[in-house]
């Protein structure tokens, strides 16, 4: 992957609004945004209702994902262009998810819904219905998904990138500040993780910074380009944004997204946790 293959501009989308092989998909945390107006021809995916198992904490399986995309009228050879609110957090999450299930041609609209709105581009409230297809998902590509054991094993051995805000990293906040702070899990971060908030990779309008700027940001933060990397946040959506930057834009070979992220790690019994603004040590001296 590279920037030219993974990212499209708002102008590119405007030029492909009537291209039958380009499927625009809006992905939001709150789908009322889509209902209030979406890019012409775009269908919607609800990151929770459509992409999460309703009972267990996991994704829908390969068969369910195949059925979902078939129902929404997406074919295996379509170019899927994802965009959404929250600076593309959930669109980036869906991008990673489509890649997890092996979709060939997926792209992200640079700047997402925000850039589109700030440009005062047109939104439509027309109902969009695509003819059903027969979509066949592949087995999950586990080379881009980290589980908790991978993450614990990476402490002091691989790059761990905590992409939450500095206050969440340090343990002063437990969730992004637009959400209530009451949570069950412990505050802090995984020892040795560097803190590079996802937002450092984006401009105010939600577009990604240049490759040179991005390399500088992660290099300055202490990312070792010769090591494998696991990115995490609170629930795995902001870290998908950073996974996209490292794996798709900067073409780092081994980058995984830990979708369990802090809501899992911060609830585990017996794992090390670091507090404060510094990464912390791999094996802190513990008394008793």
């Amino acid at each position, binding site marked *: 992957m590279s920037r030219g293959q993974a990212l499209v501009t708002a102008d590119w989308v405007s030029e492909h609004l009537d291209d039958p092989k380009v499927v625009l998909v809006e992905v939001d945390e709150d789908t009322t*945004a889509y209902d209030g107006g979406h890019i012409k021809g775009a269908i919607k995916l609800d990151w929770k209702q459509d992409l999460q198992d309703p009972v267990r904490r996991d994704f829908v399986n390969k068969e369910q994902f195949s059925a979902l995309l078939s129902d929404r009228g997406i074919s295996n050879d379509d170019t899927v262009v994802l965009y959404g*609110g*929250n*600076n593309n957090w959930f669109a980036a999450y869906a991008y990673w998810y489509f890649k997890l299930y092996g979709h060939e041609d997926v792209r992200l609209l640079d700047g997402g819904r*925000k850039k589109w*709105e*700030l*440009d*005062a581009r047109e939104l439509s409230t027309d109902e969009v219905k695509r003819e059903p297809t027969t979509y066949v998902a592949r087995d999950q590509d586990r080379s881009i998904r980290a589980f908790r054991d991978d993450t614990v094993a990476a402490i002091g051995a691989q790059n761990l990138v905590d992409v939450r*805000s*500095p*206050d969440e990293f340090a343990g*002063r*906040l437990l*969730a*992004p*500040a*637009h*959400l*209530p*702070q*009451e949570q069950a899990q412990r505050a802090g971060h995984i020892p040795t993780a560097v803190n590079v*908030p996802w*937002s*450092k990779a984006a401009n*105010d*309008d939600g577009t990604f910074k240049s490759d040179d700027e991005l390399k500088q940001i992660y290099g300055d933060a202490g990312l070792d380009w010769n090591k494998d990397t696991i990115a995490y946040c609170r629930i795995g959506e902001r870290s998908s944004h950073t996974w996209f930057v490292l794996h798709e834009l900067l073409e780092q070979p081994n980058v995984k997204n830990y979708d369990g992220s802090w809501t899992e790690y911060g609830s585990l019994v017996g794992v090390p946790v670091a507090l404060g603004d510094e990464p912390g040590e791999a094996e802190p001296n513990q008394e008793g």
Partner: protein
Amino acid sequence: MCGATKGGLGLAGVDVDSEAVIQGRVLRGGNPVAGAYVRLLDGGGEFTAEVQTSATGHFRFFAADGRWTLRTLAPGVSTDRLVVASVGNVSEVDIELEA
């Protein structure tokens, strides 16, 4: 300030005692602006959260003790406002955009 209703968002369901709430409205010529982007930056200028204003121009953050900046984006305009938040208090801020 014609057209604008005085008073902030209702706080039903919010545990005000344990939250440092920052909330308010985005206005243009005294009228609420829906769909503006409000970014919450911490004392070091680092992004912390972002919301879009509601149909009535309202926004709300759950912050922590300290000094924060509200950066408001709408087509063709970006404006910053400083605000102080503390747990147990609700900081009400009205942001007026240049017409």
